[in-house]
């Protein structure tokens, strides 16, 4: 990847190398310094196995935003899989590990599929029920799981030290899977869905598929951890799956930093050290861990890694502050309807007779709107007049009660996530950025890439090439918006105006043919409004249709070719800006109707 080698990335590389070297040399170090080398090797191996599970939990909860209370159950399942293969079926243990991964991934996928409609809390509760059921089945199914006593005598058939390296290798694999997944388009999609399924859908990401993938990958890793657990300790029994045991992984995740790559490793390492130091008072361990977790949630809510990244040491060093002036005046060539010349006869986006009720309120009361390609179309109206409802109906975020939506003359897809694929992308009224991701990553989320998540995890050349191209495109777009200097900063470090611009840029990255902007000028300073106007004009030149929902009338009048005015769910005027501005109905809608209120 063609990233500049900064001091920070060099430091990361050195730290990574040091950690890997320490893990590899550990058995020799313990051999040299301790009479009890096997104990210390086992300690690190167990920690590594816990770290694999914590990484899995991090994928599901930190990156996927899915509350999982099934993780100890998934680990148990993996343990059973491996134990069954190794002990009962007498096959080699690597087959068992494979089965562990498959079993847990399949269970995760099933869990997610059956609970697709569930809200976030309900999903967590379904995973809890699943966890309890796995344990109870384990207790009951004597033939396969050994009942309450479990399965013992699980032997990898190699020296403990050799197996130590198997565990370390598994940890490295798990970490790489996490890292490569998170940095691929699949990972960015997962984070988009986590932040807001709506804004993910608005960028053409299908939330259900994304969640399925993320949770299954996390499940597979949990199974791997379970298989290693069984092999390392030589036994597996239903108590492994108890929720009580799951706390330590939550502690590790939150202490280290949820949603960070290194957080799980650091958190587990930290706990291991604490537990080891306090092993003479082992009965206080749970108490101490519980208190440590509560305190850390209050003091360092983002965990060790998250706090470090947010501190001034961990932030990218101050880049020259871009003043919002574009470094280039050219919109990247790949933006626009290259494949399909704008057809002046068929509107790019059309709504016919749209009606939408909320309870007793008619938010839309038969709205017709047609937007031509290569124009900027303003939709204005007072607060609460139904502008945003109109956008949501046009982009299928709301199901209109009556009326139809056509995109280039064809019926729009029924699902909101499919609408960007048909060429229509919207930007929300309230910023929906991924605040803790970098500015560049935010734009990348909008770009569809042709590679699969497997090739991303394996970093195949085709994937790396696609990723390079995506980055180049994103960088070009950022340069146009004047945000290039801030590409590596977290999005929440931007000013309000820059955030709005970034959102527009991210929407442009989906290569739309119709771009809908919902009140983009709100809260912008004049210079930023100019930049926005320039962007709209540039996109129009490229043959895009730009729909501008605005409150700032002056801005609308300046950039729009055509304006539609809405009040209480009806179109009260439409036409060229000057014509609309002089309309008495429009004046009344904006300034009120003094004639209806008795004067004092």
């Amino acid at each position: 990847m063609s990233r500049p080698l900064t001091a920070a990335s060099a430091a990361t590389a050195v730290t990574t190398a040091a950690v890997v070297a320490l893990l590899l040399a550990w058995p020799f170090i313990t051999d040299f310094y301790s009479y009890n080398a096997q104990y210390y090797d086992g300690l690190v191996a167990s920690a590594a196995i816990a770290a694999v599970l914590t990484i899995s939990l991090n994928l599901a909860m930190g990156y996927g935003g899915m509350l999982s209370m099934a993780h100890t159950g998934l680990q148990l399942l993996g343990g059973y899989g491996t134990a069954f293969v190794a002990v009962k079926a007498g096959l080699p243990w690597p087959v068992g590990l494979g089965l562990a991964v498959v079993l847990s991934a399949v269970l995760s996928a099933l869990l997610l599929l059956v609970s697709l409609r569930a809200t976030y809390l309900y999903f967590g509760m379904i995973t809890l029920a699943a966890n309890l059921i796995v344990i109870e089945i384990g207790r009951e199914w004597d033939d396969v799981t050994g009942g309450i006593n479990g399965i013992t005598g699980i032997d990898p058939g190699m020296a403990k030290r050799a197996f130590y390296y198997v565990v370390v290798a598994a940890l490295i694999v798990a970490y790489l899977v996490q890292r490569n997944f998170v940095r691929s388009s699949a990972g960015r999609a997962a984070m988009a869905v986590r932040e807001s399924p709506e804004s993910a859908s608005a960028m053409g990401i299908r939330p259900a598929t994304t969640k399925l993938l993320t949770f299954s990958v996390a499940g597979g890793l949990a199974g791997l951890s379970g298989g290693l657990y069984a092999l390392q300790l030589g036994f597996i029994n239903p108590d492994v799956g108890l929720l009580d045991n799951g706390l330590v992984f939550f502690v590790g995740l939150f202490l280290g930093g949820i949603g960070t790559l290194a957080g799980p490793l650091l958190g587990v390492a930290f706990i291991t050290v604490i537990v080891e130091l306090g092993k003479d008072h082992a009965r206080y361990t749970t108490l101490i861990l519980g208190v440590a977790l509560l305190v850390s949630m209050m003091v360092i809510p983002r965990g060790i890694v998250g706090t470090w990244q947010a501190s001034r040491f961990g932030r990218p060093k101050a880049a020259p502050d871009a003043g919002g002036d574009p470094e280039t005046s050219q919109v990247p060539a790949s933006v626009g309807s290259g494949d399909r010349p704008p057809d002046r006869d068929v509107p790019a986006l059309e709504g016919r007779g749209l009606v939408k009720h909320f309870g007793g309120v008619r938010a839309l009361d038969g709205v017709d709107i047609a937007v031509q390609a290569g124009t900027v179309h303003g939709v204005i109206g007072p607060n609460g007049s139904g502008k945003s409802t109109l956008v949501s109906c046009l982009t299928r975020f709301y199901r209109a009660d009556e009326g139809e939506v056509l995109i280039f003359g064809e019926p729009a897809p029924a699902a909101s996530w499919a609408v960007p694929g048909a060429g229509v992308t919207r930007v929300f009224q309230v910023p929906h950025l991924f605040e803790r991701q970098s500015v560049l990553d935010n734009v990348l989320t909008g770009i569809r890439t042709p590679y699969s998540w497997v090739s991303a995890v394996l970093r195949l050349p085709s994937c790396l090439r696609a990723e390079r191209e995506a980055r180049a495109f994103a960088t070009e777009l950022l340069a146009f918006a004047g945000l290039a200097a801030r590409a590596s900063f977290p999005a929440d470090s931007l000013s309000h105006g820059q955030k709005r611009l970034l959102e527009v840029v991210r929407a442009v990255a989906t290569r739309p043919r119709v771009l809908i902007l919902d009140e983009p000028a709100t809260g912008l300073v004049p210079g930023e409004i100019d930049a926005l106007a320039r962007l709209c004009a540039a996109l129009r030149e490229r043959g895009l249709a730009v729909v501008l929902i605005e409150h700032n009338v002056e801005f609308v009048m300046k950039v729009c070719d055509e304006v539609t005015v809405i009040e209480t769910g009806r179109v009260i005027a439409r036409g060229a800006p000057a014509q609309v501005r002089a309309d008495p109905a429009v004046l009344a809608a904006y300034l009120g109707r003094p004639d209806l209120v008795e004067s004092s």
Partner: protein
Amino acid sequence: MTLQAWIDGVFTGSIYALVALSLAIVYQPTRVMNFAQGEALILGAVVGYQVISLGKLGWVVAILATLALATLMGVLSERMIMLPVRLSGSRFAWIVATLAAALIFQSIFTLGYRDVDALRPAPMAEGGFTLAGEQVSWQIVLTVAIALAVMAGYDLLLRRSTYGRAIRAASHNPGTAVLMGIPVQRIIVLSFVVATVLSALAGLLAAPVLFIGPAAGLIFTIKGFTAAVIGGVGSPRGALAGGLIVGVLDSVVRTEINATAGNLVVFGLLALILLVYPSGLFGKPMEAH
């Protein structure tokens, strides 16, 4: 034989119903499902064991001590759970904070009563009567009666009183409730206290009959949670119905087959209901966080 199972089921069911109600009381104004709720039940059992079995001080002292300690625990729980939830900003804060609180209380109980398998004081009401050839102890009758009274009372409070309306308002829209002059923060603290006291009383009543170990809190939380979900979180009637369904089902299957099958059926039912009736059987849906 089956009658005995039903009697046992109704008894444990009322205990689960009390825990379910406690969970709902905290959930309504906070949107926090308190996984430390079962620990309050253990507190009641611990007090009963300490005061009655070890201290020989009698039931009046036990009830007073339970009230006092549960109030303290409720206030403490509110701080331990709501402070991290507010400061953390993570969407998972509630589950992690309540689990941590649960584990902290659990380890305190296990440290104090390390060698005790079951915190089992003598019953408040000795003896019993025979019903169709089955022995029913007065303790069971008393517990069920108290549970019913609490449910009915809370239901009345929620529907009829000014405070009940305020609690419901705060649970719908805390911001607007504040504008009405409703002290939402106080309601939250009060909810924790009331919930903890109710669960602790349930523990005190149940301890002479059930085998309650010092580390059993999480299981009671989960059973109570199952009852709450089955009944629909938020309504006392739902909690009662859910508690009885869980209790009887568990008890009957346990008697007919075995303990594991009982759990399996109950948790299977939980999963099924979560999937098929996302609103519970009798209530409104739990809103997302």
